[in-house]
């Protein structure tokens, strides 16, 4: 019998919740919190910039979902590769993208990751091993499967990971990627970010059977985790990665969470039941991780202030940067034959389990 | 009838400058029209002979109605059809034959397999047309194409025909020499050069200005008056921003423009502050009880004229509207009498109809002030409700500018006068 994803048990929000992972040092715990704080601070700043008319187009964020991208990315090695979705800014931060470049990206400035060619979180910095999403969802599931296919063909102990939302599971590329990964037993991790709504469409109108259960039909496991617990997401991803690089094939992880802002800055979320929203407000992932870090006798307020200062500086730098030169609008359509080959490069991998260079333990 | 602004639905023909049979050059004024937004001249859309006038002077028609027909296949100097009884020209405009519609039965094979033939129009021998390459070669070699025997369809002159003429003269057609980009080492890729620099579009040579002409008499006269005013008056300008919501409602109700309504409010303020309804001439200060309101009327590039509404204080907005329209019409048709343009005690100028925001008008001597009415633009403004709460609302706003003579009055009075106009406009009784 299918279970609704909202039935997944999420523990009560105690002062210092027990950790679901035994693989995290105090530094890891602080690092997870810091990345989530940074993601939230950057997105809040960006929303302000948007309201001040400095962000063209609309603005999309991952408010309330910080644990999903931060937790999963924390488990990824430097040589692993990621396809990052629009609510997963934390992945870019963990991999080493600079906040000022992210804010410049939102504002369409020259220093943005895409130099103004694309907006929002529609970016990937290839120097951190990340491919930016496209708006057609979940196209990147196939790209991630393709990377994993290359790793497997070359017999490299690496894996690929991508996120996608509950709405994406209705499209054909979900099936093609799940099937492909299952048939070829690829070292890929699919993180289904179930945030209850695809724009305004609730999950009960999206699928009859929870997609995590479909994984079995493709020949690999599907697991559900509390998507508002960074350490739980980390642990599930760590286990999935171990399976992947040891030849065990793909994993579908459903991170159950809630989109606490509208689909975009223009969306008032009037379709979200108040009770549901209030229920999730009690489960804020940053509050949860803050309690854990506070229990380590670490000054969380000082950490917040440090993050705020970092974002202030990043914002000032981004605002001082120029817009792209209109003369460059038609540049870089094709890569020249004689130019240096560009491939995805290694990103940061701060988990203590990888050692100082982000290598495997 | 041209659309003289998005909201204009109709217009009245005021005058025909051209009569049937006249030769009309493209962009030459063919008639004058009046709409509730603007009175203007209508330039001819094409060169040709005016065949018929379809809308008589004084008639009001909807935007889009054809005003007249111009035969574009006529030639200057040729007799008009009515003069020699020849049949009227075949086409008023040279429309191409319609392409096969989407419902045409699988037409592409035949469409794609034969060059299009010209249909209708004169035969090839009467008006020969030449392809671009034939004209270019003929120009380069001084070939008179009328003398070339054409071997193409219906005697059309082909490239090979004109080249044969050049060759017979012993000339050579520079073929290989001008192959575009043929000698470039790399092919010019589409993506690398989406735009091709025009051949020979080198740096421009020394600028040769066109020949100058003496100013018109009207421009000279305007110049004298304006310079004299600036040398005489101590001109200052004060601005005020006014919410014209109520004027907008009123003008729609009355089907008139905003100008007479604002003029009516201005007249009220002039009666309250008569020191502005005055002349200052050789230190003699004359304050008037009667308001003779000057209204600046633009005459296109020719200049402007300021006809006067006498006894304006006794006129309703509708009455003012009628008088202003009548004067403007006569101004543009050059039918004003000298009395119509003398004796103004205060002037309103209204360039805002063209969208401008602010100006510093020059006082018409010997008056002591002039009011400038600029464009009515919707703006976000802070409004306060009956409970004292503020909110941002979208309101039609206008900036009124008053140029005044510091010899006759001081800034405080100018400001009080403008405040009075503002109060009258914003509380306009509906």
């Amino acid at each position: 019998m299918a279970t609704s994803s909202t039935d997944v048990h999420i523990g009560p929000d105690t002062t210092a919740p027990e950790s679901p992972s035994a693989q995290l040092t105090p530094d890891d715990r602080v690092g997870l919190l810091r990345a989530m704080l940074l993601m939230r601070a950057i997105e809040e700043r960006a929303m302000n910039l948007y309201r001040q008319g400095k962000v063209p187009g609309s603005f999309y964020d991952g408010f309330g979902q910080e644990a999903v991208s931060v937790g999963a990315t924390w488990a990824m090695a430097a040589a692993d590769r990621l396809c990052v979705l629009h609510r997963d800014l934390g992945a870019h931060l963990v991999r080493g993208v600079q906040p000022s470049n992210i804010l410049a990206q939102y504002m369409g400035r020259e220093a943005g990751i895409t130099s103004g060619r694309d907006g929002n979180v529609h970016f990937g910095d290839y120097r951190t091993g990340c491919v930016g999403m496209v708006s057609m969802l979940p196209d990147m599931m196939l790209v991630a499967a393709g990377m994993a296919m290359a790793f497997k063909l070359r017999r490299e102990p690496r894996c690929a990971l991508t996120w996608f939302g509950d709405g994406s599971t209705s499209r054909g590329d979900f099936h093609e990627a799940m099937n492909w990964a299952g048939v070829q037993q690829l070292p890929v991790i699919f993180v289904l970010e179930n945030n209850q709504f695809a724009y305004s469409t609730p999950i009960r109108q999206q699928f009859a059977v929870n997609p995590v259960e479909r994984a079995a039909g493709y020949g690999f496991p599907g697991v559900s985790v509390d998507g508002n617990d960074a350490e739980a997401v980390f642990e599930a991803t760590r286990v999935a990665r171990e399976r992947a690089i040891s030849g065990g094939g793909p994993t579908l992880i459903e991170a159950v969470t809630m989109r606490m802002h509208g689909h975009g800055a223009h969306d008032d979320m009037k379709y979200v039941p108040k009770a549901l929203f209030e229920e999730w407000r009690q489960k804020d992932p940053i509050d949860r991780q803050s309690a854990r870090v506070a229990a380590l006798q670490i000054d969380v307020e000082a950490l917040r202030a440090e993050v705020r200062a970092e974002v202030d500086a990043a914002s000032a730098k981004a605002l001082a940067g120029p817009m792209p030169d209109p003369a460059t609008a038609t540049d870089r359509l094709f890569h020249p034959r004689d130019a240096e080959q560009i491939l995805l490069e290694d990103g940061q991998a701060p988990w203590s389990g990888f050692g100082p260079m982000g290598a495997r333990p | 009838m041209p659309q003289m602004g998005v909201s204009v639905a109709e217009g009245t023909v005021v005058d025909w400058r051209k009569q049937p049979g006249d030769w009309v050059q493209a962009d030459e004024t063919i008639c004058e029209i009046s709409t509730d937004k603007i009175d203007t001249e209508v330039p001819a859309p094409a060169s040709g002979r005016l065949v018929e006038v379809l809308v008589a002077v004084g008639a009001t028609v909807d935007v889009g109605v054809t005003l007249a027909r111009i035969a574009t296949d006529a030639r200057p100097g040729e007799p008009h059809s009515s003069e020699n009884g020849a049949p009227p020209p075949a086409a008023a405009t040279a429309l191409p034959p319609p392409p096969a519609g989407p419902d045409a039965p699988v037409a592409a094979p035949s469409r794609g397999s034969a060059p299009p033939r010209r249909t209708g129009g004169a035969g090839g021998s009467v008006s020969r047309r030449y392809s671009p390459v034939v004209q270019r070669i003929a120009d380069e070699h001084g070939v008179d194409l009328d003398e070339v025997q054409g071997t193409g369809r219906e005697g059309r002159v082909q490239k090979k025909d004109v080249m044969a003429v050049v060759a017979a003269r012993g000339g050579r057609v520079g073929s290989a020499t001008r192959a575009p980009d043929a000698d470039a080492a790399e092919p010019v890729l589409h993506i690398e050069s989406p735009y091709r620099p025009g051949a020979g579009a080198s740096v421009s040579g020394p600028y040769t200005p066109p020949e100058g002409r003496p100013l018109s008499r009207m421009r000279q006269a305007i110049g004298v008056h304006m310079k004299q005013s600036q040398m005489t008056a101590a001109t200052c300008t004060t601005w005020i921003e006014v919410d014209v919501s109520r004027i907008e409602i009123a003008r729609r109700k009355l089907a008139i423009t905003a100008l007479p309504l604002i003029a009516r409010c201005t007249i009220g303020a002039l009666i309250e502050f008569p020191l502005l309804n005055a002349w200052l001439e050789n230190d003699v200060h004359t304050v008037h009880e009667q308001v003779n309101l000057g209204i600046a009327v633009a005459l296109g590039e020719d200049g402007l004229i300021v006809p006067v509404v006498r006894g304006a204080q006794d006129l309703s907005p509708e009455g003012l509207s009628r008088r202003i329209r009548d004067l403007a019409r006569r101004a543009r048709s050059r039918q004003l009498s000298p009395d119509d343009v003398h004796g103004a005690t205060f002037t309103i100028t209204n360039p805002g109809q063209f969208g401008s925001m602010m100006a510093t008008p020059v006082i018409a001597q010997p008056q002591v002030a002039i009011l400038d009415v600029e464009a009515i633009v919707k703006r976000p403004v802070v409004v306060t409700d009956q409970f004292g709460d503020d909110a941002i609302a979208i309101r039609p706003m206008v900036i009124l500018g008053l140029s005044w003579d510091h010899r006759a009055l001081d800034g405080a009075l100018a400001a009080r006068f403008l405040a009075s106009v503002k109060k009258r406009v914003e509380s306009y009784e509906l």
Partner: protein
Amino acid sequence: MSEMTYLRAISDGLRTEMRDDERVLLMGEDIGVYGGAFKVTDGFIEEFGADRVMDTPLAESGIVGTAVGAAVVGLRPVCEMQFADFVSCGFDQIINVAGKMLYRQGLPVNITVRLPSGGGFSGGPFHSQNPEAWFMHSPGLKVVAPSTAEDAKGLMIASIRDPNPVIYMEHKNLYRRVKGEVPEGSYETPFSARVAREGTDLVVITYGAMVHTALEATEDLDDASIMVLDLRSLVPLDEAAILSAVHDCSKVVIVDEANQTCAAGAQVAALIAEFGFEDLDGPVVRVASPDVPIPFSPTLEAAVLPSVDRIREACRQLLEY
């Protein structure tokens, strides 16, 4: 040099590059054990193994999408659509993922997508299309369409080596019908046009299978000297070669096997109208398939596809103009 069919030349190009570069792998439906629907990869799995000659699930979006992923981590995948028509199922991955990756984030996508295209053998509406213009219209993709065996091999190698996504149009009706001398070993054909026959009175501009139809149609046509320009590459389009041919000949017939509206030839016609105007001695004439699906029955199909007779008649009319 050895004589081989267009089809064998494609195989030869793939094999040559696979031997030279271990990053090259082939992906497609039924290309391994079976050797491909048209046997282009016949024998490949024996030489290169199932990892590099990959039989994929029936999933065109999957083929292109995973190829993109493999490319950005260092492989050089060559994807086969079993028929060009089926590329519509992988369209999104080509247009939105592969085509825009470099422009957006500076990451080149080195993939080649082979599209067996074209009609002339009663393939019907889903096995006869020439969808090259779909890709010409979408930025970031190169589009090539060889007409000879020599170019088929040279363009295949050049496409694989090009760091950008290349749509390789291979015409099914040329597979075994066209033969030619093909150089041994590795060589590249440039992405530029080729003069298939010199001429001065009129130029027929075309590509793919229509090059052969045009050559036949204009051979010995009323003693006229007719040039045939084989575009070979549609993106980039060899504008200099086109304008040079227009300058020399002044009369132009453009032939597409594709449906007429917005076909590759429409772009050529627009280019000539804008930059070749002064050289024209007559209207730019187009011959193409009318805007209908390619019908199945031989009589209907022949009525739709540009034929020797239609091209011949168009040239004759224009020569007389």
